[in-house]
């Protein structure tokens, strides 16, 4: 299945455009379903005609002809209907598959920051759950709607042709009943639907909270506030559902009970009997009504439900649309030609804000020369992570520019830019795949020997050899074979294999003990050799020997210099150093 290149055509604006690929098959499927369901009436007509024939003494061949016609119509109906339903489901499955491919291919063109701004749950939901909800849209809209219309339109048409007055009286009566029972519920639904969804969302949110925060719940006892929040949400949910039931449940129940076939039959024949007594119609016509009318109120009900489902599906498709219309990272068609050493990083008057009006980075200029270490230090929230991520083009700057190898990052292709650097962040980035494959993500064509070599360099080879299947052990959920620190060394091995000229790393490691941390530190030291390093540092001792230290605070670079220069300057860095040293010496004297 080919997917359109991102440049081709604009993203779909609404559900109609989203499902455009399926429209032809939906129409065909709908047509088949319509014809199939229209044929459902033939056996009823057949039965009426056989009765008529029996009374009027028609020839046997005529009677058997109707039996054959009825059976044939049922077969055609069956084939057309199942065919239409099957075809619609397959159309929908194909559409869903195609949408998912489009969505994931869309994701490779959005800025990396897009992922940063969304929880992975949101991304997952847009790709999996919400594309599933399109299911009802495609299948119900064409199949069920056409099927119901077939029964209602053809059936009612036949009855109108037989006796317009009786048909009119019946439809008026049923519409009145439906209106009396369903309108209050529809009106109540509009009102309490809001309440209901709100109660449902609230319950879902506190459930997640209760489970995620289970340690705190246990910590403070289950009678405390947390469980209270759950309990309150649960009660509200129950109350709202009860209220909803009370306002609309009775009407729905009455309509449901009135639509039992024998009840409809009794009503229809009762009215028919009266029509015959008044001399307005024939008994055989009433028989036809008794047969055919049963399907019509059901059909009217089904129409209401179909529209409700389609509405819900269209709502759910919204997040899929949002993803597809996310702004893409503009990139040139061909890789740029570097005009300087490809490990040279230059920030020129860079300003950036997540939301307009509240700048996070303000007019920052900084040069990281090839093969040097630049440390970013400063209070949390000061902007050092944002700055590091801007170099990797997680977002585009508002003004100024960032150049790598002398070329603006916006003039480089995504692959070019990404392959010029390795990012080692706190987030553990492994795939459900073998250890070897996880390392080989750094360079897919690497040989096993090269992978092992990278693992050795990252101080993780020994650990891998203790895994049940060594390099062929599957990592992933539940398996949990590697600790956080070990997984981090795996990503470092990946970086060794990729061997990019630039290394961007966040020092804060997820280690749990001194020994493991030592291993990570050694791996990083080896990896940093000969590369341009930008490091988000938390412990100042780590970066004493850095070629330059930039103190980032309030979105600005407050100071730049070497450790000695900054200490001598007696500014913010000197204060931080003094504060941290106090803790260290405190430990030493303890």
């Amino acid at each position, binding site marked *: 299945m080919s997917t359109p290149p991102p440049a081709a055509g604009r993203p779909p604006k609404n559900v109609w455009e989203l499902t455009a690929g399926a429209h032809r098959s939906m129409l065909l499927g709908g047509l088949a379903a319509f014809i199939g369901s229209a044929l459902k009436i033939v056996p009823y007509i057949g039965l009426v005609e056989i009765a008529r024939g029996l009374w009027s003494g028609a020839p046997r061949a005529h009677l058997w002809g109707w039996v054959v016609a009825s*059976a044939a119509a049922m077969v055609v109906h069956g084939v057309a209907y199942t065919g239409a339903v099957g075809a619609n489901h397959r159309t929908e499955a194909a559409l869903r598959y195609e949408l998912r491919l489009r969505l994931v*291919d869309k994701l*490779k063109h959005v800025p990396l920051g897009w992922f940063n701004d969304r929880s992975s749950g949101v991304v997952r939901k847009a790709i999996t759950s919400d594309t599933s909800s399109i299911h009802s849209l495609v299948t119900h809209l064409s199949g069920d709607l056409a099927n119901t219309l077939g029964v209602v339109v053809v059936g009612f048409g036949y009855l109108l042709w037989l006796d317009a007055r009786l048909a009119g009286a019946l439809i008026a009566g049923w519409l009145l009943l439906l209106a009396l029972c369903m309108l209050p519920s529809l009106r109540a639904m509009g009102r309490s639907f809001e309440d209901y969804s709100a109660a449902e969302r609230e319950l879902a949110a506190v459930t997640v909270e209760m489970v995620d925060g289970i340690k705190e719940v246990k910590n403070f006892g289950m009678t405390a506030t947390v469980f209270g929040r759950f309990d309150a949400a649960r009660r509200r*949910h129950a109350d709202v559902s009860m209220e909803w039931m009370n306002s609309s449940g009775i009407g729905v129940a009455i309509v449901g009970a009135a639509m039992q076939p024998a009840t409809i039959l009794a009503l229809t024949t009762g009215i028919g009997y009266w029509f015959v007594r008044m001399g307005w119609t024939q008994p055989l016509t009433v028989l036809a009504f008794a047969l055919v009318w049963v399907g019509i109120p059901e059909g009217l009900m089904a129409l209401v439900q179909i529209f409700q489902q389609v509405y819900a599906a269209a709502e759910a498709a919204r997040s899929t649309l949002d993803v597809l219309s996310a702004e893409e990272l503009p990139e040139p068609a061909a890789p740029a030609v570097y005009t300087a050493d490809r490990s040279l990083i230059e920030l020129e008057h860079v300003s950036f804000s997540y939301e307009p009006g509240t700048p996070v980075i303000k007019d920052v200029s900084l040069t990281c020369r090839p093969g040097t270490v630049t440390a970013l230090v400063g209070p949390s929230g000061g902007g050092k992570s944002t700055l590091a991520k801007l170099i990797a083009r997680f977002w585009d700057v508002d003004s100024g520019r960032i150049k790598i190898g002398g070329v603006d990052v916006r003039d480089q292709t995504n692959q070019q830019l990404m392959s010029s650097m390795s990012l080692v962040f706190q987030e553990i980035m492994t795939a459900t795949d073998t250890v070897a494959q996880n390392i080989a993500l750094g360079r897919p064509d690497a040989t096993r020997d090269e992978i092992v070599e990278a693992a050795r360099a990252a101080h993780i080879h020994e650990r891998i050899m203790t895994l049940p299947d060594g390099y062929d052990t599957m990592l992933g959920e539940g398996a949990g074979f590697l600790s956080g620190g070990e997984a981090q060394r795996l990503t470092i091995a990946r970086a060794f294999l990729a061997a990019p000229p630039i290394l961007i790393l966040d020092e804060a490691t997820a280690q749990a003990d001194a020994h493991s941390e030592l291993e990570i530190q050694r791996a990083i030291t080896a990896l940093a050799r000969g590369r341009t390093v930008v490091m988000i540092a938390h412990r100042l001792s780590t970066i004493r020997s850095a070629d330059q230290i930039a103190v980032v605070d309030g979105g600005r670079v407050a100071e730049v210099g070497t450790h000695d220069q900054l200490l001598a300057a007696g500014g913010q860095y000197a204060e931080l150093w003094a504060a941290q040293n106090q803790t260290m010496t405190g430990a030493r004297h303890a």
Partner: protein
Amino acid sequence: MLRRFNTFFDRPSTIYLLIAGYVVAAVLQGIAFSAFIGFLRAFLGPDPSRAWGPMWVLIGFGAASFVVQAATLIRANRVSAYDVCGNAVARIGSRVVRLPLGWFDSGSVGRVSSAISTETDNLSHLAPVVLPQFISGIVTPLTVMVVTFCYEWRLGLIMALVVPVVVLLWNWASRLLMTEHQEAPAIAARTASATIEHAHLQPVLRAQGISGTAWPPLAKALDDENRGLDAIMTAQGRPAIAFGLLGQAFFAAVLAAGLGVVLGGGLDVAAFVAIGVMAARFTTPISQSVFYAAALQQDMVSLDTIEQIVQTPALPEPAHPRHPSGTGIVLDDVGFGYEADDTLFEHLSLRADEGRITALVGPSGCGKSTIVKLIARFWDVGSGSISVGGVDVRRIDSAELMGMVSMVFQDVYLFDTTIAENVRLSRPDASEAELAAAISRAGLDAVVAALPDGLDTRVGEGGLRLSGGERQRVSIARAFLKDSPILLLDEITSALDAENESAITQTLAELAAGRTVVVIAHRLSTIMNADQVYVLSGREHGGPTRIVEQGSPAELAAGDGMFAALVQDFWRTARWSVR
């Protein structure tokens, strides 16, 4: 299944009353259909006005069926809103908070959420939607069959022949659908995790130009899911076609045989037409059976999912709780493992003396935090005992034990409400002044001052609007407010900013003063401040964790054991420099 479903009702008779209502309404439907025969005989006869009496019989049964069904449906709606939804959610919730921590893993949020929303929602349709369809689909045709048998046994026989075929098809379809319903979530879960990994790995994948569908694991997951869905559809399609064919064959047979009998003079026209009407009506339930089967299977799966939660045993409460005297903690010969074949501790003994600081050190994964959680009875030990103030924790009322203990974790979870509410959690009845004092002692006041709404600032889902250091301060404020005699502390490991680190170290020292403290220490400063240190071994070769050294930190540091080596490692990591 009914028995399992019944556990959600306040009164056990409810479900049987509902079923009785549906059955009565369905039988009345069947009788009304047979009354149609009498009506037609008179109505299609020479004098239609003689149908007056039979017509009222027909209307009477139709109306009676309507009243019974309407009343049953209203009742069903009520009980499923209140009993099924309400009770199921309440039971899931109250069980979840009493489950041992071991039950919780990365998938538990998904499991509980789906049990509370999707599965409960499914079950709520059982009484008012699935049951009436299912019952009328079976009982009405059976009644009609019996009545037809009385009029014309040959046609009755044809109808009866359908029954075994329907039963056979039903069994086949149910098995098929059950498997598919059970497989679908696993297929979906694989795609979900591949999608998340794909998002996390973007920088690496883009560097290699293998992002999106060009990344084999994701392409494979999507492809597998597509193929899996296809298989499910095929599996559902076959019974649908089979039932459809059966329904049509049934109708054609009744029509043909009926006409034959009529022409042979064995049956009057009115009875034939009425039987034809009934046969035409019941081809639909027959061809729809597969959907009832699917709905019932879905409900079975929902019941399974909910029961997996509500039937998991909770930690037992003591029948005759005892009150601890003092706060000293003793682990005596403890054996414990998360899984039956994996022993984490064997004959582990240690003591944390009253009013003293006891530090636990050791490599990651050796079970330090398990020890702390065992003291707070997040799980029960497999063998041996843990006592607080001389009483086995299993014999202390859980509310009393929780009241004695404050825990500060490193992965602090905050609830999506205000900072004040989050702190107050540890003592809901605290006064404003006490709350303010706790916040200030935890050093949280500076953080709060910088926030737009101060104490009323909402912290976001999981507290993510605050930094790690700020979240830990909230947790420390909780502990100050609770002011319990025992403090269990899991020190934050990830590197903090210079300022944060020194401040938090100081705050924790204040918090520890005068309490019995067990601390999982990651910082040398904390370890050296402890009164007593236990050094735990790693789990080489999967063996149980042992205590390799114990004593005062100064003593141990001066020796040449594991602790001394650890201190050396600490100094080395502290001296590390990237180049």
